[in-house]
C-alpha cells in the first residue's frame, strides 16, 4: 500500500518537475494577488495587519484552485487515468497519492512563501508563525476537497468555472479556521482552538475526499 502511494507520488512529482511553468505560474499568482491588496486599500499598517490573515488565506485558496483543473485532466487525456482505474488497487488509494502530490507541488510553495508575504503586511513574528502553521495544516484539506471538484468536472464543458463554483463553497470552513487562527493570534487570543479544528478538517478532507473522488472519476470514465 505504501509502495503504491510512493509510486503515485513519485510519478506525479517527476511529471511536475518536467513542467515547472505550472508551479511557477501558481506561485506568482499568489504573490501578485497578495501584493495587490495594499495597493487597493491603502498602506496604513494597522489596517493591513487586520486584513492580512484573510487576504493571505483567500489568495492561497485561489492559487490552489488554479492548479486543480490539471489534477486529473492530463491523465484523462492520454489514457493514463483508465490504466489507474484498472489497476488492481483501490482507485481511492491512488487518488490519495495524487492528492498528496498535488499538495507537495501546489500547497507547500504557498506555505514557504506565506511568512515572506506576511512581512509585507506588518505581521508580528507570532502571527507569522501561526500563519505558516495554519497554511501547513490547511492546504492539504484544500487539495483533498478540490480533488472532488476536479474529478466531477473532468471532461465537462466549461469545467474550470464550474470547478470553482463547486469547490469554493466547500472551502469555506477551511478559510474560516485558517484565517481565524491568525486573527486570534493578532488579537491576543490563542490560536489552538482554530488550529485543532483546522487539523480535523484536514484529516477529514484528505482521508474522506478520495472516496467520492474515485467514484466521480469512474463516472467520468464511463
Amino acid at each position, binding site marked *: 500500500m505504501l509502495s503504491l502511494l510512493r509510486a503515485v507520488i513519485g510519478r506525479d512529482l*517527476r*511529471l511536475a518537475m518536467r513542467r515547472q511553468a505550472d508551479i511557477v505560474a501558481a506561485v506568482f499568482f499568489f504573490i501578485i494577488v497578495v501584493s495587490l491588496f495594499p495597493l487597493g486599500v491603502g498602506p496604513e499598517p494597522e489596517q493591513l495587519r487586520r486584513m492580512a490573515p484573510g487576504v493571505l488565506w483567500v489568495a492561497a485558496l485561489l492559487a490552489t484552485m488554479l492548479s486543480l483543473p490539471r489534477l486529473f485532466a492530463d491523465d484523462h487525456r*492520454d489514457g*493514463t487515468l*483508465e*490504466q489507474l482505474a484498472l489497476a*488492481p488497487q483501490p482507485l481511492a488509494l491512488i487518488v490519495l497519492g495524487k492528492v498528496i502530490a498535488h499538495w507537495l507541488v501546489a500547497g507547500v510553495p504557498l506555505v514557504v512563501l506565506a511568512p515572506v508575504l506576511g512581512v509585507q503586511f506588518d505581521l508580528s513574528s507570532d502571527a507569522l508563525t501561526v500563519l505558516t502553521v495554519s497554511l501547513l495544516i490547511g492546504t492539504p484539506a484544500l487539495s483533498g476537497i478540490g480533488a472532488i471538484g476536479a474529478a466531477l468536472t473532468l471532461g465537462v464543458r466549461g469545467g474550470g468555472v464550474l470547478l470553482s463554483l463547486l469547490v469554493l463553497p466547500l472551502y469555506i470552513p477551511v478559510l474560516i479556521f485558517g484565517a481565524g487562527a491568525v486573527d486570534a493570534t493578532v488579537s491576543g487570543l490563542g490560536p489552538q482552538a482554530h488550529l485543532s479544528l483546522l487539523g480535523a478538517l484536514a484529516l477529514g478532507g484528505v482521508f474522506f475526499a478520495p472516496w467520492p473522488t474515485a467514484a466521480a472519476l469512474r463516472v467520468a470514465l464511463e
Partner: protein
Amino acid sequence: MLEASNLECVRGERRLFADVSFRLDGGEMLYLQGSNGSGKTSLLRMLCALTPAVSGEIRWRGKPIGKLGEEFRSELCYLGHHNAIKEELTPLENMRSSADLAQEPLAEEAALDALQLVGLRGREDLACRYLSQGQKRRAALARLVNEKRALWILDEPYVALDPAAVELVAGLIGAHLQRGGLAVLTTHQAVAVPAGAIRELRLGDDDANDERRSAERC
C-alpha cells in the same frame, strides 16, 4: 473463462448493439469486427468494467466482473485508444512507472530488453513528445512484452504501426495465447496470429443497418 451474455450498449440515444453473447476460454482470441461507430470500443470498455452494460452480464471464471472488482482487474491488461504514455517522460520511465503503479516492479534490464524488442533502442532516454505516433504506440506496446496477466484487451493494437511492428505484436499475442492466455482485440487489419484458436464477432450487422445500406445502394 470469459463469458458475456446478452450485452446491450446505448450511447446517447442510439442503441449500438444488443444481445451480444460470446464465450472465450484459455488460449483463445476474439477478433471484434465492425464498422466505425458500431460499438467495438464500447464493448471492450464493458469487458474491462469501465462502462456498465445497460443490460446483460459479463462473467470471469464464472463470477460477474462487477462483484470481482480488484480480483478481476489484477488479471486484466487493457490497452486503449490512447497510449497511456506520458509525453514528458522517456519510454523507459514510462514503462517503469506504469509497472510501479501496477505494483509489479520491473527491473531496468528487463525494461530495456522490452524496448529493444519493440525497436526503441537508442530512444529510451528521449522524452516521448519527441517520438513519432508509431514510436509512441510501440512504447505503449512494450508493456505487452513482459505482461503475464491472463486477459488482454487490446483496442486497435496495430494502428499506426509499420508491418514489422505489426508482426511483432501479433507474435506477442500468439505467445500469450500459447501460454493459455485470452485476448480480445479490435482491428481493421486482418493479421494472422501464429497460435491459438480465433473466434470472430461482428458488431452492427442488424437489420436496420442492412436496410440503410440497401437504401444507399439505390
